[in-house]
């Protein structure tokens, strides 16, 4: 997610001579199994170059899907094996609470205040969104949202083939577009099953965020009940969406579906800026980015947040904090850079227009609902075996159960 990094090749081991005074910072970064690339390889090189002789990041490159990596984080935590620097620290509120309530994370406030630019580089809203309700700042997101918006990524040529020069602005036009694609024999949507149903849920939440009730519902954190009209609307929307995707979509997970999209098997997908690296610079000209119909973008600063864990020496902790500061500086330096490709230009244009930002449902709802309940019951719902009200009732029952477990 660091633009200055421009990762274009898979991580390779480097021969690094360690000086006696050099502090080694052990980190674990995810490598995308599809591309065999990590978003953070360039960051490691740049940091090690800038702090040569003083600090050195020593990454363990973990080939893992996003959800797999997040599960690993949880396991490392209970086994007391967390690396000093963790990414995706704010993806799951429950996990974040596990970390903070057990004093597993370093409060970054003193370093932020001591830094010349850290606080200045941070958007106040983002900083406020990452501050812990009990005081202190344990998450370090990027300073601005420029790199973390999510919307629609689509194949310009495929949409053009059915007469769409621009992406539909309204949901009515959206359905028409999908119909047109379908009629042309093009699979309109790249959707998947399992997990939190990320791509379809992005579209569905964007759909209901368009009206006031839907916005209020999505803005509510950890709602007590899902049996409401907004959720009914969302569920119906979901069912309709799956009429425009691969017939076997439920058998594939997110990573496999993303691969199918990049392979040209579908016309559009809902996802964020971070998918651009997976698409690859050489393909940027084929794609465009657009907000969800109704001028909605999704953004959640916690999603880009990293954190420093406790249990390491002062020198290593200091080094890890330096990495966070360095990462923000890199992102700050490159926030407005466009490479002239249609994909990047359309992304920047989307972020500069008058849009509404919706929260990430993943951070608003119970993790167990997303990761277990959806996986368990969504296929039945989509197949028509479970009715909407029944589904939402079961959802509420699971919420109750989850609450009782806590």
């Amino acid at each position, binding site marked *: 997610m660091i633009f200055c990094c421009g990762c274009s090749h898979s991580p390779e081991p480097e021969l690094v001579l360690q000086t006696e005074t050099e502090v080694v910072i052990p980190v674990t970064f995810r490598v995308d199994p599809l591309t065999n690339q990590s978003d953070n390889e360039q960051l490691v090189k740049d940091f090690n170059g800038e702090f040569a002789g003083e600090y050195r990041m020593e990454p363990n490159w973990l080939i893992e899907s996003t959800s797999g990596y997040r599960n690993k984080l*949880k*396991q490392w*935590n*209970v*086994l*007391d094996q967390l690396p000093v620097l963790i990414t995706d620290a704010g993806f*799951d509120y*429950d*996990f974040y*609470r*596990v970390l903070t*309530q*057990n004093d*597993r994370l370093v409060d970054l406030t003193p370093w932020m205040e001591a830094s010349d630019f850290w606080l200045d580089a941070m958007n106040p809203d983002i900083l406020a969104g990452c501050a812990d309700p009990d005081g202190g700042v344990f998450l370090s997101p990027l300073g601005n949202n420029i790199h973390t918006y999510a919307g629609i990524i689509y194949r310009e040529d495929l949409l053009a083939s059915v007469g769409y020069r621009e992406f539909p602005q309204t949901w009515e036009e959206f359905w028409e577009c999908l119909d047109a694609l379908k009629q042309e024999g093009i699979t309109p949507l790249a959707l998947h099953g399992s997990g939190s149903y990320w791509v379809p849920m992005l579209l569905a939440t964007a759909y209901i965020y368009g009206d006031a009730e839907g916005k209020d519902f999505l803005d509510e954190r950890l709602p007590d009940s899902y049996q409401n009209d907004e959720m009914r609307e969302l569920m119906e929307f979901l069912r309709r969406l799956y009429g425009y995707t691969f017939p076997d979509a439920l058998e594939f997970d997110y990573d496999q579906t993303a691969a199918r999209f990049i392979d040209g098997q579908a016309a559009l997908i809902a996802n964020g800026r971070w998918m651009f690296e997976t698409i690859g610079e050489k393909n940027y000209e084929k794609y465009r980015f657009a907000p969800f119909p109704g001028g909605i973008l999704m953004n959640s600063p916690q999603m880009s947040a990293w954190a420093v864990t406790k*249990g390491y020496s002062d020198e290593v902790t200091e080094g890890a904090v330096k990495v966070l500061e360095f990462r923000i500086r890199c992102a700050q330096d490159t926030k407005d850079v466009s490479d002239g490709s249609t994909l990047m230009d359309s992304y920047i244009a989307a972020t500069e227009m008058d849009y509404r930002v919706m929260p990430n449902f993943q951070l608003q709802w119970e*993790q*167990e609902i997303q990761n277990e309940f959806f996986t368990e019951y969504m296929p039945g719902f989509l197949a028509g075996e479970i009715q909407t009200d029944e589904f939402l009732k079961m959802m509420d029952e699971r919420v109750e*159960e989850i609450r*009782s*477990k*806590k």
Partner: protein
Amino acid sequence: MKKEQRRSWPGHFLYSTRRKLILIVTLMLSLLFCGTFLGVDQIMKQDRYETLTKQYYYVNRQMISAFEKISEELDQLTEKYILNEYVQKTLTNQEITASDLEMMKKSLAFYNRSYLDYYLVIDNKENLYSQKKVTLDFEKFRKSQIYRGFGDHYSKTVLMWARDVIFGTNEMSFFVVRHIRGLNVNHEPGMLILKLNENLLDPVKDSITDDQLSYFILNENQEVCFSRMPGGARWNPEEAVNREILQNVISRQGMETGNLDWSDGIVSWDYDENSCFTVVTYASKEVTDAVISKIQGMMLAVFFITYGVAVLGIILFSSWFTKPIQYISETMRSFDEQSMGNRIDLNTNTELDEIGQAYNKMVVRVKELMEDVKQKEGELRESELASLMYQIRPHFLYNTLDTIYMLARIQKEETIMRMIQSLSRFLRINLSNGNEQIETAKELEHVSSYLEIQKIRNADLFEYETHMEESVASWRVIKMILQPVAENCIKYGFCDIEEGGKILISAGREGDFLVFTVENNGTPIGAEQLEKLNRLESAPLGEMDEILQYRQGGYGIRNVVKRLRLRYGDEVRFYYRALEGGTVCVIKIPVKGEGGNGDE
């Protein structure tokens, strides 16, 4: 006769190059070995502590490393328990159903290990889950060493040696404890306790290679949780040495690693920060000294091997070197007139070849010189004879004797006539016109003339007879060899008689020898004189004068023998034998071919 050179004992012992070389090498290597041995011994004694403690440090590190493997293994094992779905469920507020319990038991049974006796999961509501029926008094449990092992660690795997207050054995055992934290949601942690058996230390036991050392592992409370003694002996904490070892280690517990050299041996220990166990290695005095002895033994072996190789090398080299020397020596030693044709033939590609060539040249030169000497001697003798002949003026002498003979005949003096006749014959043969050799018949005529004159001079003192084989009559021999012998018969043989003496002279052939015998019936020759005379035929020519002095009347005989040996070589025999009634002299002269010696 060869003179054997007598040598002193060391001289005799050290005779030969080989022995001298061996002695030198022995001395040099011994000196070198002694110096090295003493030096190394000195240095080793100084460095022994340092060397051995380094070695024991390595041994300790091996054991610590084995311990680390155990820790890793336990980490991985406890991970399985902690991440187990049903164990995680015990932390939540969900009800644990009988089915859950069954599934938990089944899934945890998969984690069985040879070193694992029992597991116990205590959830955050103090419910117990174990394959063994366990009841726990939590009040007591919280005071136990096992409970204290959890400490403030978030989820650290802690291995400990503690009394079993959980599973009912009440014995000291290894336990591993670890907090069970909630994976997804924050809960009070549960506790995982695994009771382990002695199989746990198999990797440590496997890492032990030296059975001569004693090994101990101490826990944080300095309790011995593992021991391995030499010869399978059992650890006895009451034993004085063991007590002292522990005291020494415990008193230095603050040090992570350490060594101590004391009168009973060396103690080395290493502290594993991760497990908080201390590994101790103890080497008794016998063991530490054995190391030095072993090294010294090795040095001794190296010395003997080196010495053996050196001696073998000397023997091989000297054999190669002394063989030609012995060959030269033998050739030189056997050098005589007959072996003058022998030559040394060496091709060793060394300076010895030059010695051989020099010897060959010398032999040629000696031969030349000998021939030269012989020739000069002959020339000198002939010159002397010619001079005498000239002085005597034989014709004048013969004419004068003829005149005297005529006068005696006129006056009818028979005796004088006979005497002058004999004298004239004697002188004619004596001079022989200067010839050195005469016919055997002439030699007998010559001695007869002499005896005729002596017979007249000594009235009827003796009679004489001569016999000669016809075959040897014309053989030529050097002249005047019988006259001195016959003279000695009269002079010494008949010295005790007035009359009746008899001299018998014969000449004949025996094989390749012309043999003369001169026998008399006078007083037998004395033993002392006989020994002296008989030594003449074999004594060195230069020593003959010493054997028989001029005044002892041996001049004539000595002169005869010398002349015979000079002329005919050492094959000539000349000896006397005492008979019962007289003495006989035997002269044997080698002849070449049937025609005698063939000389001029």
